[in-house]
């Protein structure tokens, strides 16, 4: 390998990327857009659920109960209605996700100490959200119910019961239970997968399509020099994009960063090597830019989205899918990034994931080197 030939290739690629507005957009704009999009758009948290209340009694007790909904950060009471048709309409139009109906004999039955039913109607189009809404609703009602019981006991002259079982929960790693802290580290992996695979998938195919490849391979440049020369610029760009994403995550979204920079960028470098090699491989095999870029998207972008644990927890996937995730390098990076960001995990504890990424990197880089032959047919 001759350094000046490698440098000539890399320099040429840099110039071409700089003059190609499409590539530039992907390089400069996409990482920022993706981080902002996911940081703001994909929230798995449920807060301020639009709620509609129908108070059929209007007693101090019923108002007390509904006030608890209004003061909870999980609910936002947007509508007071005075009949079932209006409640139905509010849920139908999507103006509200939850309807709470207080019965007309609420305070009377409470005073009698009998069981009282409260009606909650939930828009369960999204079952996950519906479950969360039910959970929060139950919590509010249970709180109200417990206090009513204590008041009742007090009025009977009883002391407060000495023992109740309580959960003292401590949330670790993502203390504020913010889903963006969980998502942003994963976005870094998505951005790298797209830049790495998508852009490189175009480079070799473009030379074939434009007819420049024949001239290129008639020179003494070696396959390895062509490959490295083409990948070095994208490696640099990929690392810069990674740094930009991380900076936005930490600086703007205030995602905690507790690990070591070396672990972060070391694993990023391994993953970049993997995705760059995949992109290069597709570019060599497909020979047209369109086919290569589509292969790249389907094989890298989608799995790193769906099967990496970025949004959907791997532990909860069916066993077959869970096994399948091991084939996609993004899974290891997402695991590493989440651990490094939130837990501050040190490299030795991540040795399995790092080793897996390293193995992928070596195998794919070797395949990419072998795939590119300086021949026409």
């Amino acid at each position, binding site marked *: 390998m*001759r350094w*000046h*030939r490698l*440098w*000539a*290739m890399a*320099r*040429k690629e840099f*110039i*071409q990327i700089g*003059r*190609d507005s499409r590539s530039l957009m992907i390089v400069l704009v996409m990482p920022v857009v993706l981080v902002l999009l996911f940081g703001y758009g994909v929230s798995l948290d449920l807060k301020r659920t639009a709620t509609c209340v129908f108070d059929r009694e209007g007693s101090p007790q019923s108002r007390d109960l509904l006030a608890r909904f209004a003061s909870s950060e999980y609910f936002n009471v947007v509508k007071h209605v005075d009949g079932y048709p209006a409640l139905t309409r509010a849920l139908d139009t999507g103006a509200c996700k939850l309807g709470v109906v207080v019965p007309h004999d609420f305070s009377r039955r409470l005073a009698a100490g009998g069981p009282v039913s409260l009606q909650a109607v939930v828009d369960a189009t999204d079952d996950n959200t519906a479950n969360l809404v039910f959970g929060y609703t139950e919590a509010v009602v249970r709180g109200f119910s417990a206090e009513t019981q204590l008041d009742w006991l007090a009025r009977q002259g009883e002391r407060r019961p000495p023992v109740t079982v309580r959960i003292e929960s401590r949330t670790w790693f993502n203390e504020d239970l913010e889903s963006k802290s969980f998502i942003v580290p994963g976005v870094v992996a998505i951005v790298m997968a797209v830049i790495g695979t998508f852009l490189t998938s175009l480079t070799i195919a473009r030379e074939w399509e*434009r*007819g*420049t*490849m*024949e*001239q*290129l*391979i*008639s*020179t*003494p*440049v*070696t396959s390895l020099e062509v490959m490295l020369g083409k990948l070095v610029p994208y490696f640099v760009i990929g690392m810069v994009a990674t740094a930009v994403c991380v900076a936005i995550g930490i600086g703007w979204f205030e995602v905690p960063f507790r690990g070591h920079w070396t672990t972060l960028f070391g694993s990023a470098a391994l993953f970049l090597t993997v995705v760059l090699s995949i992109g290069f491989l597709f570019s060599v095999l497909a020979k047209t830019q369109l086919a290569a870029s589509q292969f790249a998207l389907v094989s890298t972008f989608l799995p790193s989205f769906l099967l990496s644990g970025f949004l959907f927890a791997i532990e909860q996937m069916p066993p077959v899918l869970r096994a399948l995730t091991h084939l996609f390098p993004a899974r290891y990076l997402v695991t590493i990034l989440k651990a490094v960001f939130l837990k501050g995990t040190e490299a030795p504890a991540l040795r399995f994931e790092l080793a897996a990424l390293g193995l992928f990197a070596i195998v794919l880089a070797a395949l990419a080197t072998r795939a590119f032959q*300086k*021949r*026409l*047919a």
Partner: protein
Amino acid sequence: MTQNGHSIVVENLVKRFGSFTAVGGISFETRRGEIFGFLGPNGAGKSTTIRMLCGLLRPTSGRAEVAGFDVARAPEKVRQNIGYMSQKFSLYHDLTVEENLRFYAGLYTVPRGVLDERLRWAVEMAGLEGRESALTGTLAGGWKQRLALGCAVLHRPPVLFLDEPTSGVDPISRRKFWELIQQMAAEGVTVLVTTHYMDEAEYCNRLALIYRGALVALGTPAELKQRAMRGELLLVECEPFDRAVEVLGRAPQVEDAAVFGRALHLTVADAAAAIPAVRALLERQGVEVRRLEPIRPSLEDVFVALTTGRGENGNGRS
């Protein structure tokens, strides 16, 4: 160079693509500083042969040596010693003139000490002084092509392969281009060039006629013409023309008469004897002879003559 001074040695070179034989056993040798032309219709196997000689295609069988290196065994050594211009313009459109030159200079390992001088030389040769920072895609055909030549010879290769270098280029640029080729050959560079322009073939020292993957004739343009044409050619211009065509078509001295515009080409066994006889014959029939002289056959005549009887001629450009 190989020991006997041949810069390209080709022995029974064959290339098959599946059941199709693109090149069916070609052999030839070139001398140092020679302009060696490949002449033939498209699809005859010219480009395939060149690509094998550049190490871009692996020969099915046979052997070829370029600048002393075996193309199958030492393709990288071959590439260091050749310049190649592919049929399609293949520099980077989105790079400037200078960036293209520097890129190829880098790939060919042009030494730092002579780099600037070589770049200046290439720019000058291409007539692109003052346009070094123009994007290559904005250049007109003739300039692009001279720039491509410049890129291919930055490392001063002893052997140069040019695959239809002048297709799609205007006549003046073509002439300029050939002057450059002749200059390089005079400096000792062996040039193997393919063309289907008959007039360009005349610039070559020797020509190989390629037809359907086979080498059908090899020699200097003059030798080929002599060998191919039975007899000599006469040009006749006269008035009235129709009468002359009728008379000469029946004349025993004339083997063949063909109309070329407002003139006639006559094939005769012996020009010196035929001229007075034809003149006398025409004047006897009341035809006024304005011009009657021997002419040299063109390579087009030769090509047609040599490929007739070998099946259909190539159907032009593909």
